């Protein structure tokens, strides 16, 4: 049983640090409360669905911000210009994009994806991802393509970070269960860390 005690302590320390660093918020605890003997895999199931859905959303987001560039290039390459003409066209395209990006990207579509991502991350308690999505949405509203691209990278980063943390957390839970113990439930996220 000493093994179980040690595993449980490590688990509590780890999950406490995740709350403190805002990777997770109280919603994660709510998910744990919904898990019981009749639904022993609930958290793993929800988190897995979240991972899968998020990868899709991130792909959709990345491609919806890229489409402006690729379409123009397809068009130019179809003209089969000489090398000199291609250089000139490239330069003009570069200038054109610089000044008209706002009209080319469908910010409403991007905003739609971010809204979805904000919702799903909020539903699993992935606080940092959710907050990054909120900022990303502001850039979308301002039609700020540069801001959007930068923040999309941040959102992606935060997602992969929390994915990593959650995988570790769930693995620790498994270890406790396999050692014959029960997973300690943090009844309440300390007020200090609540938003």
């Amino acid at each position, binding site marked *: 049983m000493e093994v179980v005690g040690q595993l449980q302590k490590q688990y509590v320390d780890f999950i406490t640090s995740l709350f403190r660093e805002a990777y997770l918020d109280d919603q994660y605890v709510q998910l744990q409360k919904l898990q019981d003997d009749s639904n022993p895999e609930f958290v793993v199931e929800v988190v897995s*669905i*979240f991972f899968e*859905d998020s990868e899709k959303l991130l792909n959709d987001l990345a491609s919806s911000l890229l489409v402006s560039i690729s379409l123009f290039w397809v068009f130019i390459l179809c003209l089969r210009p000489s090398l000199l003409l291609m250089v000139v066209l490239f330069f003009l395209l570069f200038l054109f994009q610089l000044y008209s990006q706002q009209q080319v990207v469908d910010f409403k579509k991007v905003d739609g994806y971010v809204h979805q991502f904000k919702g*799903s991350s909020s539903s699993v308690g992935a606080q940092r991802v959710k907050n990054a999505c909120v900022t990303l949405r502001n850039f979308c509203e301002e039609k700020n393509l540069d801001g959007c691209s930068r923040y999309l990278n941040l959102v992606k980063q935060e997602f992969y970070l929390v994915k990593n943390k959650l995988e570790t957390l769930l693995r620790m839970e498994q270890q406790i269960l396999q050692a014959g113990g029960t997973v300690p439930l943090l009844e309440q996220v300390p007020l200090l860390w609540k938003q």
Partner: protein
Amino acid sequence: MAKGGVSLETKFHVLAVDDSIVDRKLIERLLKTSSYQVTVVESGVKALEFLGLLDDKNGSIDSTSHSATQNHHQVQVNLVITDYSMPGITGYDLLRKIKESTSLKNIPVVIMSSEDLPSRINSCLEKGAEEFFLKPVQQSDVNKLRPHLLRGKA
């Protein structure tokens, strides 16, 4: 409307509507912990289909349909809980169609939304929504459904 020999154990049947796969999983679990029978669909159109409010012949919404579509769908739904922002038919549209339907207007409807907008809340409540829940929906929110369900059975 109830057939003879209905078991005393008959659970309330809740129809949940949400386009988010994560939220569908969550609301289904929340409702099941309250021992409700749950049907979850991913869109307003699927919800209308399930409720028998879609005219089978040409897919248009027929809110005053009588026996034809009613016999086709004998499902008894005691409450509808729907997300507000959905592509296609929004939760608000769904609310409106249910309240304008002669056969289904007494079914309590609850709206869920991630946006805390007073104007949105007010327009939903004015249209006849019983409750407006802010996402992520909590167990304490789901506990508020029971009085509306019990009132329906009275």
